[in-house]
């Protein structure tokens, strides 16, 4: 759903043609976490994803405090890790410097590989306090998202969505591809 409040101030900023000038601001459709989990008959999710491809989930229990506490300490932690092998620093053409710490979650037990932060850094210790719970929360929300979208898709998709090269295994549904 568009928010039609035009961001004139931003649009009027002097920027070359290659840079982005917003025509207006846009607020993604928002869906509560309870609604996401509910086995409802509506198609709120697919409506949003068909229209613009973006949707915002709100009201995930504990998520606000958890994410804010964690993100508040992120930059300090990453600065502590400057020049360490387990952090990445990049510089964009506009001069922006990006510091990154990355990990991967793979299927199965112990699938969420730990972030390789500096355990001796007090800032990283603060950063990591809720990290495991945060990742589990995101993972759980992601699974609900995939399952809800699978249900809303209903019989619109042919099966399987994907398969292995030898055809032995198939990924029949959207949620099969995600999990």
């Amino acid at each position, binding site marked *: 759903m568009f928010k039609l409040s035009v961001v004139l101030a931003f649009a009027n900023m*002097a920027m070359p043609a290659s840079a982005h000038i917003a025509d207006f601001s846009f607020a993604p459709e928002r869906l509560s976490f309870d609604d996401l989990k509910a086995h409802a008959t509506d198609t709120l999710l697919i409506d949003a994803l068909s229209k613009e491809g973006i949707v915002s*989930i709100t009201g995930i229990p504990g998520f606000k405090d958890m994410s804010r506490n964690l993100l508040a300490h992120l930059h300090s932690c990453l600065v502590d890790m400057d020049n360490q092998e387990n952090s990445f620093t990049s510089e964009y053409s506009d001069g*922006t410097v990006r510091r990154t*710490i*990355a990990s991967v*979650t793979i299927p199965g037990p112990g699938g969420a590989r730990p972030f390789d932060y500096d355990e001796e850094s007090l800032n990283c210790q603060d950063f990591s306090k809720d990290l495991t719970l945060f990742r589990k929360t995101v993972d759980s929300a992601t699974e609900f998202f995939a399952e809800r979208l699978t249900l809303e898709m209903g*019989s619109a998709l042919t099966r399987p969505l994907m398969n292995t090269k030898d055809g032995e295994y198939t990924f029949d549904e959207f949620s099969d591809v995600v999990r």
Partner: protein
Amino acid sequence: MIHKLTLLCNLAFSNRNGEHLEHFHSYQKMSENDSSDTIEVHTDQGLFIAFTPALISSYDEGTGKPDLSNPMKESEGFFIETSEGKTAMVDFSSEDDLVFMLGDGVNQYVNTKLNKDKHSLSKALRATPHAVKLQAHGKHLARVWYGLMVLPPTSAYSEADEMTYGEIRNLLTRTKNEDIPVGLGCSSTQMRALEGGDDCFEQGAVQCWHRCMLLEDYGLTFDMCTEENHAVKCVNPRDQVSTGENHGDFFPKCTDSVEEVTPYPTIPSYPQDPEVCTAEAFDEFKMQGEYMYNLNLTTDRTNADFYWTPNKDAGTIKGRLAFNGQFGYIAFGFLNLAEDARHKGMNGGHIIMATPGDPDLYSAKFGLDVSTGTHINEFMIDENGSSFRHWYTPVGESDATVTIDDNECFTSLEFEINKIYLTDIDVEGTNIMQWAANPVDRFAGYHSRNRAYFTVEWMTGKAFIGREEDFVVSDETVAVSDETEETDGGKEPEAPTETSGSSKLTTSIMGLAIAFLSLSHVMRF
């Protein structure tokens, strides 16, 4: 400068061979250079990304600590191109949002699979082109962000690219940007490119079963294997070496084996003779014996029936599982209802399993020794390891019998039980059961699609594939009378039935049931 600059089709910053990539980023822009976007317009190549809207955090340069007295606020500078072709700055007004944004993966393997009717096509998903443009700010500020990108399974095959997505990612990671074929791994030939990243080795892992398997999880190190003059390889229990892209029972091992992966040797008479093993012959086979009720377990991938007669006084069930397939193994039992049970409850389940060899002499390398004859025992499927090699030791004997027709076409398992191992039959209530069979080999390694879990109300004959919570009432819901939908001994339902107190049924219950059956595509006994 960024290595391999992200162009239009941005796979991921750090490609680690896993399906879900997670990143925490901190951006700082101190220069006034506004000549270009920070991150140009692109569409992520993954299926979607879940991310927290970026926040501006304060930082005390003196102490190196976050300045928590200065509350974080939402960052501006994230843009999308709307479906109307306009540029919009995204306003994440909520403080607790987790945003899901679709990537080019939906164009590659979701939208291409939509049925061609109008209703289905209306559900086409949109990958969101987006860009980031940051404004200069003081050194004490940083834009902080988290994202989780979901990529297609590495073992899934891209017909357009004629390689697996894992191969595509490896190729993209190892290939110079200018040498990457246009359109590789993307829905459009106008899209390509990604940034490079780590590989398994740097994580102390090897690529195995489409993931980076940590050696330490298997009691190994690279040094250990080197000292033994072996190499670390991804192998199956038969010591056959995988490139890491094979699905199945693979794990890291110190070995010198160079044997390539081959399928399990099949049952000598495999496959069925279609001239002999006809549908009519199976109908005749499965109908043997008298039972009160029947649940048709047939899907588009397998053909089986379950028959039963409850005995309320004795507290027992007389049952027969008939399977249109040869005898590699056949199993029936309880689903594990623990909340954290793996593979939808397959793991940890208590089952009866008939094997064409003594399970105590089972070898994952050589399979079941058929010279030891058919054995039927009770087992508890390992709570974590799905492969039979993890749980081949029986937990009890079973009085069940196995019947194989004269032409070695079909298999059935008959039993009269009040419990399996530690789980009791609730004759007057409902149980959630599971079955599986392998008609191909005698290694008990897989069941492919010859399996399901299903719900049975023993005394009433009500039954359906799946569990009640699997089914939801959608806008396609219709009411179907109990008379036409409930299973009983005299009918063979064409589709699984929903038989709770509610009369609401979905028209696509079969489809949904199959969908849920498919959730754990690597389930295996």
